Structure formats: C-alpha cells, structure tokens
C-alpha cells in the first residue's frame, strides 16, 4: 500500500509546489480517499512549505473538501428551492430507508455517506443529486432506488 507521503508527493509532482497548487492537490486527495485526514493535511503542508493550520483553514472553507471521513460514495441531494418543491423530501427518505442511514451519516460498511447540498444546477430536471461527481436528475423514489441498487451491487 502506498503511504500518505508518497500519495501526496505524486499529487504535488503533478500540480507543483506553489500556493496555487494547494486546491488541486487537496481535490485529488479527496477524489482518492473521500476526505482529508489530519495526516494528509500535515503532509501537504510539509511538502508545499506552508503551515498545517493554513491548509486546514483553506480546506474547511470548501464544503467538498471535508476533513470528516466519508464513504466510498458520497451522495449529495440538492435541497435548493426547485428540488425542494419537486419531491426532494420523498427522494431523501427513500435513500435513508434503502441505505439505513440518516442524513449526515455514513453507512457501517463505509460505502455510502448521505448529505444535502445547495443548488447543483439541474433545476429544470429537479429533483437532482450527485453521487461523487455524477449527477442524477428527475428523481423519483422508484428511480433513486434503482440507481442505488446499482451502486450497492458494485462493491
């Protein structure tokens, strides 16, 4: 298994050591590990030669750069007005029932985390959600169950 030092080094190699490389490096770490561990942030600080507090302060400004451990698949259900008026609530309860987790929680097998998010730009096809980077739109309880079934299958 590659260590966190090596993993960060590889990303710093790709994006560089200047300050403007910080976000791309952090984004790549989240894409790989689903969250930013303390260890990862300290390592980034060391390799970019900035303070760990600065890395933490920057990362936590951004809602997608979470320092909290997340599941392999992060589900973000849009809660902004169009989705909210077009049945987001039912979709959310269906996800909670299917995955047996509540909003804000991660499943015991660390496969799914369930979050709400602000407008993701699919208002004309509301309600919508993201699973990691992929958008799903015009959701209904039936459709969301089918989507989740596929993800549950692909362990």
């Amino acid at each position, binding site marked *: 298994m590659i260590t966190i030092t090596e993993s960060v080094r590889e990303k710093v190699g790709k994006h560089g050591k200047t300050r403007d490389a*910080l*976000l791309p490096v952090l984004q790549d770490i989240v894409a790989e590990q689903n969250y930013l561990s303390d260890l990862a942030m300290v390592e980034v600080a060391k390799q970019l030669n900035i303070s760990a507090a600065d890395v933490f302060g920057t990362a936590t400004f*951004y809602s997608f750069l979470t320092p909290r451990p997340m599941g392999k698949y992060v589900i973000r259900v849009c809660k*902004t007005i169009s989705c909210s*008026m077009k049945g987001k609530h039912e979709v959310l309860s269906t996800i909670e029932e299917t995955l047996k987790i509540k909003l804000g929680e991660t499943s015991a097998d660390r496969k799914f985390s369930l979050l709400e998010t602000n*407008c993701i*730009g699919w208002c004309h096809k509301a309600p919508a959600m993201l699973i990691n980077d992929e958008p799903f739109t015009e959701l209904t309880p039936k459709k969301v169950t089918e989507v989740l079934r596929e993800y549950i299958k692909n362990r």
Partner: protein
Amino acid sequence: MRNIPVKRVDLIFEKVTCKEIFLKTLELKPEEIIQSVIESGLKGRGGAGFPTGLKWQFAAREKSNEKYIVCNADEGEPGTFKDREILDEVPEKVFCGMAIASRAIGAKVGYIYLRGEYKFLVPKLEARLNEFHKLMKSVGHDFKILLRLGSGAYICGEESALFESIEGKRGEPRNKPPYPTKAGLFNKPTCINNVETLVYTVMIQKYGAAHFKDLGTKDSRGSKVFSVSGDTPKAGIYELELGMSVQEFVDVFGDGDTKTVQVGGAAGFCVPRKRFDETIIGFEGVPTGGSMKLFNSSRSMYNVLHNYLDFFTEESCGQCTPCRVGCQQLLKGIEAVKKGEKSSKYLDELVKLAATMKLAAKCGLGQSVGNAFSSIVENFKEEIIY
C-alpha cells in the same frame, strides 16, 4: 417603451467553425476587436451586467507583461444552469471567446474556473482543450487555457473570491478597488467574463456588432440564455431576445396559474403577478443572470424565502459582519414571526436590516440578499406572517 414579444434566438448554441472566426479576428488590431464589442452593447451575462467592451478596454490599457483571461464557470446561483449546457454543447466557442479576449487585452494565459458540481464535464473539456491548444499553435497565437475546479462554495462565483480560490486560498472576496482589470488574478490585470458572455463575443466577431445590437432594447442589447424552472411545463434552457415583459414571458412559460416569478435567482427579485405587465426582463427592469423561476398559487412564499435565506446563511463566507450576522438574523427573524414569537411589525425591522446589508456588506452576496428578501416580504407579507 418598445416591447418585444418572446422571440427565440440561436446564437449561443449555433455550430460555427471557430478557426475561421478566430483567423478573422487575428487580422484585426486589438483596439478594433474591443471597439466592435463596445459597439455591440454587450453587457456581462453573469448577472452584474458590466459592459464587456469597456472591461476589455480597461484591461488592454494596463501596462503589464502578465495578464490573465478568466472564464467564470462557477455557476452557482439557484435556478441557473445554462453555463453547464453551454460548456457541454459548445465548449470550443467558450475557448474561442477567451482567445479573442486574449488577443484584445494581450494575455497569454487563461483560466476556466469550473464549479466542483460540474466535475463530470472535465474529461470532455480536457479533450476539447487539447484540440484547442493545437489550433492555437497552428494559427501561431500564444495562448493557453488552464482548467481549475471549485469545491462547493457559491461565493467563489464572486470575481475576487474566485481569484483567491485559484490562488489556493479561502474564497473570500477582496476589497474593491482595485478592480480586476487593474489587479486581479495573482494581482495582475485580469479580464473575467461569464461563459455566455465569452460566446457572444465570438458571435459578434462572426456576424458583426450591428447584428447583435439590433436585437433587444437600448439598455439591454442582444439576446440572453434563460434557465427556466419551477412551476412550468417548459422547464429548460432558452435563448431569447432581451426586452420582453414578465407577462410575455409568463404567457409562454407559465402553467396558467403563475403567482410570481423570481428573476435572477436567490440574489434576484420577486416579481408578483400585478407587476408582470410593467416589468421588463433586462437591465432597465429586473436584471438577471438567466435564472427564471416560476411559482404558482400552490406555493408558500414563506417556504421559498426560508429556502433562500437558508442558502445564503450557509454560503456567506463569514468575512464581514453585515452579511454573516445579517443572513442569520433574517432567517431567525422570519421564523420568529411565523411562530408568533415576534409581531408582524418586526418584518419592517428586518427589511431595514436587509437594506443595511445592501449598503454595508463587502461583496455582491451580502448586498443582494436584500433583493429577494425585501421583494418577497413586501409582496407576500401575509404569507410570511400567517
């Protein structure tokens, strides 16, 4: 006042040969390119509506060997989704607009700041950027575009916050002045334009400034891509000539029971039915980045306002007190009035608070919370109280 009924336009999504258009602009002097954009009357399509040609002119006049073109693709305004479609359908036109701007102001590097929620577009954009860079090489124009992603912060759509974010910092807006054309990204002269604006500059080069200027009204030239959602049987993306009234818009897009239209998203204005006729969609009436949300009589405007305030409370960067505390207090305030813990007169106090935020907040986010707040409270007071 000249009223224009709802008229479809096809400029943004029209398939064109970018190479041909760009070669044509290479023959022009930078001043000539800028002059044509000024003549067209094009104003920024992100919502703020600053004249694009002037912005280019200011950036061009700065003496610096390092300048930047930034494409603002951090489309986060609730109800706006047209930039995603433009980047998905005609990305090469966006790149071409950036190349034209680079020629106009003398920049060698451009950035596209794409919101993290649109990360699924990245493989496609990278492939097209590859082709674009080959094109730039073949025509001998020294310009490259870098792609940067956001990470779920609405405030990064504010131009100076966006620069901070590209620079690897917290996306906190800067004080202005200096404006971006003087000191923007990496403190260098920077021209930042919305996705749609950049595509219009391409079409202005293709068809000429007059063609664009002939569309729309004196204050709102040209056409605009609208993101239509809410209670409508025709939700989607439409490019329409500017200058129509809200009534004309509702006649086409409404469901027959439209009570109000929120123009410009959470940061925009609520237009009630009684003002549909007199309100023009454009810079002379209600400006918009394209977000058009229709609400019918089954919707509670309390819920709508609550949703918006919840949004702003979360997305306020927290840097300045008027916005950070103001958003929280507006949200708590309408909850207290709804529960009867505060009298309905308290709403007047909240409207005053919103007005204070408009004056005292550091950036456009805090300054525009009052738009939706005051226009909803004033027009739907009963729904907020009872």
